[in-house]
């Protein structure tokens, strides 16, 4: 079973996404900031991370950089999401595999997830 880590400081939306992903047959975990997500990632080694850009403690860009720097996550895909337009984010950080502008439709997310890691 593929593993997905959902990272969002708005815990409600992270939890809802996790439940949907579980219903789709994935193993899903939640974290509320980048620092907590790193600890969890080392524990569960996710195939894919869905991470929010603006978060306390460690934001989505900082988290993704740390993840990329760790060899054990070489194959982990990163979907970055934010309410901001991608252009504004790409100026500062582009180390992600896909970007989703919030609010997004769940079908859009599931298509991306399937494209990256299958079922």
């Amino acid at each position: 079973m593929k593993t997905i880590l959902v990272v969002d400081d708005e815990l409600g939306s992270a939890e809802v996404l996790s439940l949907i992903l579980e219903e789709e047959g994935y193993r899903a975990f939640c974290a509320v900031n980048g620092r907590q997500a790193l600890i969890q990632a080392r524990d569960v080694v996710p195939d894919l991370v869905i991470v929010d850009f603006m978060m306390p403690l460690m934001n989505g860009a900082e988290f993704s950089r740390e993840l990329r720097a760790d060899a054990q996550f070489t194959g982990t895909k990163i979907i970055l999401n934010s309410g901001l337009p991608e252009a504004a984010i790409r100026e500062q950080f582009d180390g992600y595999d896909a970007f989703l502008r919030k609010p997004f439709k769940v079908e859009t997310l599931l298509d991306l997830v399937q494209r990256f890691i299958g079922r």
Partner: protein
Amino acid sequence: MTSSTTDNVPPIERLRSSVPGLDQILGGGLFRTGVYIIQGLPGCGKTILANQICYGHVAEGGAAVYVTLLAESHSRMIQHLSALSFFDVRAFPDKLAYISAFHELETSGLKGLMSVLRREMRTRKVGVLVLDGLVAASEGASDIDLKKFIHELQSIAVLQDCTVLLLTSGNIHRMAAEHTMVDGLVELEDKLFDARSERSIQVRKFRGAGPLRGKHSMRIDNDGITVFPRIESLYRIAAADTTTSEGAVTSGVPSLDALLAIRGVPASSATVVIGSTGTGKTTLGLHFLHASTPEEPGLHLGFFEGPDRLRSKARSMGMALEPLVASGAVELMWQSPVEATVDEIAERLLAAVSRRAVRRLVIDGLSGFLESTVYPERITRFFSCLVNELRNRRVTVLMTLETRDVVSSVVSMPWGVSGLVDNLFFLRFVHDEGHVERLLTIIKMRDTEYEAGLRRLKIDSQGMHIAGTYRADGDVIPSAQPVASPEGPAPSPSK
């Protein structure tokens, strides 16, 4: 030897809010490092106000963080804010960030929340921190815990040079524990008056300074929030004694000037022209306006007739306004009487007066102000302040006021207008042996002699002129004196 006088205590710097009008009612802005509550029911504009302050601070080179608890999702908030002119995507994430601290509150209570706020202030070096959802933070907490939380927040705010805004939709009529602790309490309201709603802002508490007290109207549009300080709180100084010292200003009607000892109305005076529909009030106003020059600019504020109609009306009486508008001698300003508050209109009017150093002002349709207010009992004080301020700015004002009865021997004078203005002209119709005639009576001129009595008034393709004295041989002899309205200060508006 050391001195311990208060001269050595530096004043606390202010944080400019970038919300037009807000700093004015705060006496210069929020105090930096203060902790303020912004309170009001959902939909009253708290989120926009706090965001506008954040973006304004960022635009001035600072940084801000917006921390939510159980509030609108960040993406939704960004979507809503992106339609507003102050939104700037370049601020993210270094200068402005939206973060949620609800998880910390849920798992570790106020202590966990405080830890997030402390960390965000330090790491992001923000000058403004917003905590949206104080209600969520206070739920389950005792009064003493909440007071300790605010106290700690105040200490950190000073150490980190950060101004804190706490947003809450808590009961605005209840004195809560946190109210006693914070440096200021700003209340927003969106109140319904029949079918019309009016937004207002009130500074209920503000340590260290005296804000403009009471409710001030507020508008939300694509530029965010604009506050319009109540005119009575802004302009409290007495009017300069100018009416007798600056000479005369022509009314624009030579035969009317001839009835006045100084051949015109006193400069910087206020004149009301009262009469029923069709008696010639707007025409007299157009004559007054038409006498404007680039050196003595004129402004026409109309509530009912728009600029095109005015130009056409003036043209039909031999007065071309177009060249005057083109040369900058005249500006025609139209204002809907129902889409703005009286303070908003007054601000717009005074700004237009200042912009062009206006010396001749026509306000056509005084009851437009009455229609714009949801507090009719305010109108006399409001109007008194406006007229005083215009006098102080050396503006000679001519205002029209419509009476309801077309032909009447008695006129109801609303709002105590007579006591507020310097000069009063009364226009009316009379029936006389099968004819209807227009009459003009000068009821009152301040500090100036005038010829009293009834004058025939003619309006033709050459405009308005006095056509001799009227002798009432017919059935109707109109009253020479308007009387105060028996119903009180604010009758229902006509025009």
